[in-house]
């Protein structure tokens, strides 16, 4: 960006493309905002409050009343009661946490967890460090699943509703009696019973469903989940013979080529894959530095694309032709030998790189270069395709992996995740059976068909009217529950017995850590209760069932000890592993290629006859996935890693396309004359592409999730029983003239061109490991200090964050929120830049807006040696302690906010309201009892998890020693899937954090200010051609 307009030098790193224009900075509105550091004044906010429910007058009343109460409280303390146990359980000591090994139940990855409970209630979920899938890490969704347990909207009792009549609660006994009566009649009358579930990942549940549905002569289990990786499994089936999800080993891949596969964000097993991928990233220093390379072709901007060394924005649907052009370059270009079927070669011949390049807008030289690189990295590369991409693309990707010799090296052919049995065709068949009156009883669990199935494509709701009895097993009254006859409260996974086959030979157990709230029952328990009453299942509860399943199927494989001893070991460790032998390479079946179409050219795009059209791309939401987490306020308020938007979905379009439409950020557009969506201008998209996240717009998720955003499943395409289509639909787009302010955290922290982040290329790094020091003249400015230096006797806590490893996934944000009682503020407060996250992920771009590079920076309190906040606090509520922490003393703080104003990193958060009051009912059980719940009027910020430091010191003192390196981890560090965060004692020269802080790549953010942060960032290194980096 050396282009100058009137002497204006565009910033090297930018937040939004508008910053690249001089006119933006001279705009008086922007200048005024800069003056107030993009924060709003409280009076403005109070004036706004008329529109958000709490009127100004009420606000003053509340203020006055609480002030009076505060003064009265001085006079008489409230009387509190201590209620001890009648009989204290042996393992419980009030104040001392217990930890239980279990398995995360939020997706099909099957990550091992360790659940921390206090006085019998789970307060934090962390990864199980011994578990091979996630190695102690969890994603944001896994971390946030804790709050799902305490969802106040969970059903308290079963519900009976005659359709169209007001639902009424019923007792469990009445429910069981009613359902068993129906089922018993079904057994006698040979009624057709269907159990519809989402993707089943538990081997014991699969066996249970088989027994249960087998009890009815016409019973069947239907498995369908919209975002299960069905096409990947089908692609595997046609390429290798069985529909499975192979294990991919990104740690062994030096070259990764992805076609819209978001394996770092919303993929099959993001924690495992991100961890593996990070292992193969930068190692060694100077000319010995090695680094894997990630190439990404994708239409939307995903977390994976943002982390790619080279990302190519494409039009949705071009993945297949690009993949085949690369195959063309490899096979017909004779880069790789082999004998191929002549009919395939004939088809392939139509995909010449030149032709594909012309049609897709990707340079021909790029296609050849990638083909050459793939050959160079033979046997150590990996080609991936997104789970919702068409089967044909998966077949081509399998072909590539096979001819490149990756099978058995970076891909283990034995199934990894449990068999993927979810099929849209099954769902399609079910609806048709229902329509023709061939289903008498329908039980649905997990998947939420009324929400995820577009009624115009597949009339599920209409067909439901012909089913006599509909039973819904769900945690709350969701969309499908509203149309059911009986709704059965379903327990959370933290309350249930279950299991996972996370990987071949790796079985994980899911054990309850609390007895079900409101007496809910797990899906297994409910089915067992009914099956037992019908006399088809011997077990009486899920505990017994799971245990006997393990005895029969898993224990036998390693019967060195008694079963009870084995089972106890399993419950302690959380999993059991049986050696499965060497990696398995399969042979590609060439007939799989016979169905490939000849190349026809460009996908239809652009201006149609009836106005402007756009091509849709629908992806899972990074935080809500398929909408299952919609009622989780932590995830609703987690800013999207790419767009920083919270609480809504939106239409991401390129700056060029926005210009064509005449819209800018927050303008509302209408799609197909029916649905309104706010615009988010996203650099790095192709013109004409419109990206929307799924998972929003729930009709009945609960108080938090209902109505947030719009339901994009509406546009998921399908043609008969064939697979659903998640991208490539063409929609009409029109401007509405309306405006909807998205709650984005993007502009809350403008850097104003200061050197806050840094990135270099691998080539530069090889030449000079400290090359990043040259990127900005102000980066290393030495300024004399007027402050005396602090001295430290034992500990000086510090952190290092590797920006090469950070993928921006946001797991740390939620882990911190759970650990530190960080409240949720809601959409309106985020709009006025008052979100409370102690750690945030700042996303910056560099390069041209058409194909920008992305860099993520986790930003939290830097615990500066010369902290600017400390010097301005009039009441010494923020001070430096003797272990290098910048501590915030809540009980001293009077809320002047001077510190926030003076913080160059903008990491201090002010409680404008009693946000904790928004946690209602059971939600209050989620608070961490070791951290103060902050009230209105005080400042807070990252404490480096001081309660964990205190706990580590306590344990070290018990042992009569000092805290040793790695003895404990901060919450953010603990969950980081890529190990980007390291915390420790900088007073110990041998500690990992000290070594990293002294490494050549280390720099301190805004070092020029001489505030001496305790956090060192490690420069981001990109494995991309150097000349393009300067573009």
């Amino acid at each position, binding site marked *: 960006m050396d282009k100058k307009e009137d002497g204006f030098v565009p910033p090297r790193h930018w937040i939004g493309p508008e910053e690249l224009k001089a006119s933006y900075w001279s705009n008086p509105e922007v200048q005024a905002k800069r003056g107030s550091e993009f924060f709003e004044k409280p*009076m403005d906010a*109070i004036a706004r409050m008329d529109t958000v429910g709490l009127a*100004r*007058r009420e606000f*003053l009343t509340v*203020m*006055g009343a609480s*002030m*009076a109460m*505060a*003064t*009265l409280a*001085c*006079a008489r*303390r409230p*009387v*509190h*009661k*201590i*209620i*001890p*146990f*009648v*009989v*204290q359980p042996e393992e419980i*000591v*009030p*104040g*001392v946490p217990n930890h239980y090994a279990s398995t995360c139940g939020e997706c099909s990855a099957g990550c091992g967890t360790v659940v921390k409970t206090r006085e019998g209630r789970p307060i934090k979920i962390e990864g199980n460090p011994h578990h091979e899938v996630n190695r102690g890490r969890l994603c944001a969704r896994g971390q946030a699943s804790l709050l799902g347990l305490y969802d106040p909207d969970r059903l308290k009792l079963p519900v009976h509703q005659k359709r169209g009549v007001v639902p009424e609660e019923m007792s469990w006994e009445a429910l069981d009696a009613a359902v068993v009566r129906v089922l018993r009649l079904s057994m006698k009358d040979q009624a057709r019973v269907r159990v519809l579930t989402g993707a089943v990942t538990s081997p014991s549940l699969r066996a249970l469903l088989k027994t249960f549905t087998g009890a009815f002569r016409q019973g069947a289990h239907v498995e369908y989940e919209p975002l299960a990786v069905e096409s990947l499994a089908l692609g595997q089936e046609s390429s290798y013979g069985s529909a499975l999800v192979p294990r991919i080993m990104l740690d062994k891949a030096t070259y990764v080529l992805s076609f819209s596969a978001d394996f770092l964000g919303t993929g099959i097993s993001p924690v495992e894959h991100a961890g593996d991928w990070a292992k193969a990233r930068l190692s060694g220093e100077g000319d010995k530095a090695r680094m894997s390379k990630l190439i990404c072709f994708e239409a939307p901007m995903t977390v994976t694309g943002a982390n790619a060394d080279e990302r190519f924005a494409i039009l949705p649907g071009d993945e297949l032709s690009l993949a085949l052009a690369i195959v063309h370059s490899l096979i017909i270009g004779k880069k790789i030998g082999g004998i191929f079927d002549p009919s395939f070669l004939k088809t392939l011949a139509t995909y010449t790189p030149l032709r594909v390049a012309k049609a897709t807008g990707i340079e021909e030289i790029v296609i050849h270069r990638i083909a050459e690189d793939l050959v160079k990295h033979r046997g150590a590369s990996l080609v991936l395709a997104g789970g919702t991409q068409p089967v044909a693309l998966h077949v081509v990707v399998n072909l590539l992996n096979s001819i490149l010799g990756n099978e058995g090296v970076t891909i283990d052919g034995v199934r990894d995740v449990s068999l993927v049995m979810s099929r849209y065709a099954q769902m399609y068949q079910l609806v048709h059976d229902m329509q023709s009156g061939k289903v008498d009883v329908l039980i649905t669990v997990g998947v939420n068909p009324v929400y995820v199935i577009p009624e115009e494509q597949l009339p599920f709701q209409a067909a439901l009217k012909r089913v006599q009895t509909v039973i819904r097993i769900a945690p709350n009254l969701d969309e499908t529950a509203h149309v059911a006859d009986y709704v059965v409260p379903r327990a959370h996974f933290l309350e249930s017995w279950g299991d996972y086959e996370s990987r071949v030979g790796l079985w994980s157990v899911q054990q309850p850590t609390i007895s079900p709230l409101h007496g809910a029952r797990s899906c297994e328990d409910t089915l067992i209760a009914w099956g037992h009453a019908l006399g088809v299942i011997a077990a009486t509860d899920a505990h017994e069932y799971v245990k006997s399943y393990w005895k029969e199927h898993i224990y036998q494989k390693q019967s060195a000890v008694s079963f009870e001893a084995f089972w106890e070991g399993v419950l302690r460790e959380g999993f059991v592993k049986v050696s499965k032998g060497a990696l398995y390479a399969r042979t590609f079946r060439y007939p799989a290629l016979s169905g490939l179409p000849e190349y026809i050219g460009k996908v239809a795009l652009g201006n149609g006859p009836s106005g402007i059209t756009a091509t849709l791309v629908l992806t899972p939401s990074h935080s809500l996935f398929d909408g299952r987490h919609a009622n989780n306020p932590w995830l609703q308020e987690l800013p999207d890693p790419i767009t920083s938007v919270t609480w809504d979905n939106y239409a991401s379009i390129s700056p060029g396309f926005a210009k064509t439409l005449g819209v800018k950020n927050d303008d509302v557009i209408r799609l197909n004359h029916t649905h309104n969506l706010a615009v988010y201008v996203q650099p790095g998209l192709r013109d004409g592409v419109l990206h929307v996240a799924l998972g929003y717009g729930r009709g009945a998720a609960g108080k938090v999730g209902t109505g947030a955003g719009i339901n994009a499943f509406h546009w998921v395409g399908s043609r008969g029983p064939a697979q659903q289509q998640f991208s490539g639909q063409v929609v009409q787009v029109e401007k509405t003239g309306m405006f909807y302010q998205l709650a984005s955290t993007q502009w809350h922290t403008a850097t104003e061109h200061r050197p806050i982040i840094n990135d270099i290329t691998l080539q530069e790094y090889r030449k000079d490991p400290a090359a990043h020091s040259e990127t900005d003249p102000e980066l290393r400015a030495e300024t004399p200090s007027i402050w005396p230096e602090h001295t430290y006797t034992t500990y000086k806590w510090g952190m290092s964050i590797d920006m090469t490893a950070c993928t921006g996934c946001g797991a740390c944000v939620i882990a911190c929120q759970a650990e530190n009682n960080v409240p949720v503020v809601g959409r309106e407060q985020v709009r006025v830049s008052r979100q409370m996250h102690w750690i945030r992920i700042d996303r910056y771009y560099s390069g041209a807006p058409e194909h920008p590079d992305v860099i993520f920076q986790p930003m939290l309190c830097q615990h500066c040696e010369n902290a600017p906040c400390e010097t301005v606090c009039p009441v010494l509520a923020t*001070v430096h*302690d*003797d*272990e290098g*922490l910048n*501590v915030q*003393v*809540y*009980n*001293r703080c009077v809320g002047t906010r001077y510190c926030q104003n003076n913080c160059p990193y903008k990491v201090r958060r002010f409680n404008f309201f009693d946000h904790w009051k928004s946690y209602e009912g059971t939600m209050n059980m989620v608070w961490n009892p*070791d*951290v*103060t*719940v902050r009230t209105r009027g005080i400042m807070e910020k990252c*404490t480096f998890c*001081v*309660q964990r430091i*205190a706990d580590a010191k*306590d344990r070290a*003192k*018990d042992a009569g020693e000092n805290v040793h390196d790695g003895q404990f981890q901060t919450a953010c560090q603990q969950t980081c899937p890529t190990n980007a965060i390291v915390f420790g004692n900088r007073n110990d020269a041998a500690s990992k954090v000290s070594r990293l802080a002294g490494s050549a790549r280390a720099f301190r953010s805004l070092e020029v200010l001489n505030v001496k942060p305790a956090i060192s960032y490690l420069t981001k290194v990109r494995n991309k051609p150097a000349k393009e980096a300067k573009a």
Partner: protein
Amino acid sequence: MSGPKMKLVLVVAIAGGIGVLGKAIELFPTASNQGYAPEQPILFSHKIHTGDNKIPCLYCHSGAERSRHATVPALNVCMNCHLVVKTESPLIQQVQKAYEEKKPIAWVRVHELPDYVYFPHKRHVAAGVACEACHGDIASMSRVEQKGALTMGWCMECHRGETAPPEVLRRMYPHVQDPHGPVAPVQCSTCHH
């Protein structure tokens, strides 16, 4: 309501608040609950248990060694003795009844710190601070009373060594004739997080 008018209302509200607060501070000079001795649901006497019968504090308050909380014993701890001891007493029968009916007793909390204070019993017990140092002569109390002020200044005096028990001082400064000086950390983050 217009801007200036609202500002006036705000100013009046704040000034009024400060006035009320000032009066409250005048009436109640410290926020301490010193001398608080509430009636308990069962007339439990520490004097009989730990004074007359010399039961060690940690027998019942076993959490004090292991946890932040000293913990009030569960009923099964009471029943360890009272299954056989003094079973004819109507007070003990009250306890037995609660135990049999599985109804926990709601004791009234005497010593209470604000929510933002994290006081660990465990570290104090490990450092050899006697229970009486803070709780007073419990062995002579029929009804427990808060003896110490439990204010921050009161804590700090001890941490700085001014009111620290002599045995703690001697252990901290073993080779000094007349030991004095700080005995424990005085960082904000030690207790507030």
